[in-house]
């Protein structure tokens, strides 16, 4: 993935004695000490990170931790005290006003916490704002604005005034305004922070859905760790202007860098962070016709499982067999070595690899392992119900035990699939 945005050693100190403040920072003094000594406020200290093209980079932190300052430096609304901010190799921090204006017009758009829609313009005119600034002629402007409104489902409201819309809808207009110019980078400063929880969830899902097709490079600011974990391909946790940890959702949840992060992680919704893929195992499926009941039972004993999936000769899932049923069938005197069909359960739970664990909760309660299938309905893994519950309850030990297991299937689950495809 090519790097779109590269931030290096960026500092922002508000106030007069910036040099003195930077010196004290270098000596390792805290934000409060520096404020007391120099009267200068440290907004951001020594931020360095890269964001790849099409990636969502989330910056999470409490109020006052410097998130807004950081994101405003990315499009030059705030000039950094030192450091460089490269967008496609252009340094926003030092490129001059003209070039900066060009970058803002062509490359980088912004969505604001309180929407910042222009109250005297209609929704369509608002969505067209970036194009108007660029000097696009009215008819084309309108057409492209309507297209952007279409993307956020608000075309019908084009002629309304922003004040006639609900908060969620206003922010969609804000998003449409950001998308209309076709920028490569989207800066979003707590865009859903002012919305009701239900609407916020809806908007998060919608953003993810949009992102699947748009593939923008997004810098997303939030104070809500759940939101960060849900949206972020990579997440930076910020405190007092500093990054305390940068990593994927899973890395941050399973391995918090310090007590500060751990305190956040303690009350997150794990079911939204982890997906079926994170807890799935090698399918170790048995094959109709080839394998018999005894083979299946032996495999279950080896893997310490209670059930296995059964595939037919075309690799379609035929069903699932449990140790209990197979054992009962073998005990049947009349047919000492039964075929798998006799114990086959054909109603079984399935999930996609990127389904959130929350969504698997019901299926896991049924007791059967959940079949993880790919887009062509092929079996790529199985999720044991216990693994779901262990991960949801944050039981690190059990989840840890599953981890090495879960690491192998990605290799082994692939190879049989390929073999079979060739066969």
């Amino acid at each position: 993935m090519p790097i779109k945005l590269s931030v290096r050693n960026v500092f922002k100190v508000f106030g007069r004695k910036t040099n003195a403040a930077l010196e004290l920072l270098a000596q390792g003094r805290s934000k409060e000490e520096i404020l007391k000594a120099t009267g200068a406020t440290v907004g951001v200290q020594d931020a360095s990170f890269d964001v790849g093209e099409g990636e969502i980079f989330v910056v999470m932190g409490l109020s006052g931790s410097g998130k807004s300052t950081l994101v405003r430096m990315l499009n030059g609304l705030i000039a950094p005290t030192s450091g460089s901010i490269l967008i496609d190799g252009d340094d926003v921090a030092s490129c001059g006003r003209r070039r900066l204006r060009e970058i803002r017009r062509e490359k980088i758009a912004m969505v604001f916490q309180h929407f910042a829609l222009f109250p005297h313009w209609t929704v369509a005119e608002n969505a067209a704002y970036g194009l108007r600034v660029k000097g696009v002629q009215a008819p084309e402007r309108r057409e492209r604005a309507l297209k952007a409104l279409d993307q956020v489902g608000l075309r019908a409201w084009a002629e309304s005034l922003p004040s006639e819309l609900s908060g969620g809808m206003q922010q969609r207009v804000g998003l449409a305004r950001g998308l209309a110019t076709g920028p490569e980078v989207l800066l979003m400063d707590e865009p859903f922070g002012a919305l009701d929880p239900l609407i916020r969830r809806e908007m998060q899902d919608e953003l993810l859905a949009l992102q699947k097709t748009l593939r923008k490079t997004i810098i997303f600011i939030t104070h809500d760790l759940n939101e960060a974990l849900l949206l972020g391909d990579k997440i930076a946790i910020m405190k007092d202007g500093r990054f305390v940890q940068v990593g994927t959702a899973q890395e941050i949840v399973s391995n918090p860098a310090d007590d500060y992060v751990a305190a956040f992680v303690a009350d997150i919704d794990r079911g939204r962070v982890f997906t079926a893929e994170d807890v799935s195992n090698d399918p170790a499926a048995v094959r109709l016709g080839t394998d018999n009941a005894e083979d299946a039972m032996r495999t279950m004993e080896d893997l310490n499982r209670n059930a296995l999936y059964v595939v037919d000769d075309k690799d379609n899932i035929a069903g699932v067999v449990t140790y209990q049923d197979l054992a009962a069938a073998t005990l049947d005197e009349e047919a000492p070595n039964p075929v798998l069909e006799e114990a086959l359960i054909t109603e079984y739970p399935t999930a996609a690899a990127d389904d959130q664990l929350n969504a698997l909760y019901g299926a896991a309660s049924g007791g059967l392992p959940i079949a993880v299938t790919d887009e062509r309905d092929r079996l790529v893994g199985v999720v044991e119900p216990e693994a779901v519950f262990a991960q949801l309850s944050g039981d690190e030990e059990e989840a840890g035990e599953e981890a090495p297991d879960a690491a192998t299937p990605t290799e082994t689950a692939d190879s049989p699939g390929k073999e079979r495809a060739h066969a």
Partner: protein
Amino acid sequence: MLSPGDLLVIPFDDWVNDFVRGWLVPNFRPAFRAAQVPITLVLNGLDDFFNALPMLLTTGVFALAAWKWAGRSMAIFTLIGFAFIDMIGLWPQTMTTLAMIITSVLFCAVIGIPAGIVAARSDMVWKVLRPVLDIMQTIPSFVYLVPIVMLFGVGMAPGIIATIIFALPPIVRLTNLGIRNVRGDLIEAAQAFGSTGWQMLVDLQIPLAMRTIMAGLNQTLMLALSMVVIAALIGAGGLGLVVNTGLGRLDVGGATAGGVGIVILAIVLDRITQGLGEQNQAETVSLRAVFLNLIRLRGSHRPTGEIRKAG
């Protein structure tokens, strides 16, 4: 009793005399004379225009404007009030006063709105401008009548200049206020999309400040009206002159008639401009819409033309 005045006498009045008579007047009189040319031009044009218009047509236009922006009862008041002015024989003087007011307000807007915009965009400029406006508003207008006469002479234009000085502060203040009060995140949004300062001004700041600017314009208009009598002291005509003449001759009737004329004109102009401003508020109207309104006002000449025929 000993007082500071016994120890030291400062000839402050002499200093001012020396400054104005000895330096300002001899050096700059031609420049000041030239400065009143545009004022005279606009004023004479408007004065001729209003005095050439038939009384019924003018009344009709004002009544319609009052109806549109201030309601029906205001329209009726306008009709009756203007008829009354005409019947007490002060119509021409009222039109002269109207021309003076419009000229003053026009120049106040032309000077004051840009000044307010500049002040809003620079704290430095505002820091300098603010005390100047304070002084303009607190000095009694009689104080600057004398230097104005010395620099500009007597007559209509000097009267207008005194009026402009007196009526200018509110429009500057309120333009500055309106633009500064535009929400910070909207300004930020405009910047984030790469707008230039000019684009931001035209797209965002002026439209959103329009209501406040209109309120300033209304205040300026009212101040200009209140200067009518004082301006007449240095040779401006119109209703102010009627009042002054009445005062001079202890002619209570004449002075009162002039005063009533001013009051009627003030009420009509105040309500119409207030209504215009409030309409901006209700519709959060853009600059374009304000211009459209003006065109619509001009469009309403036609029905009044018929009234004239009927009359």
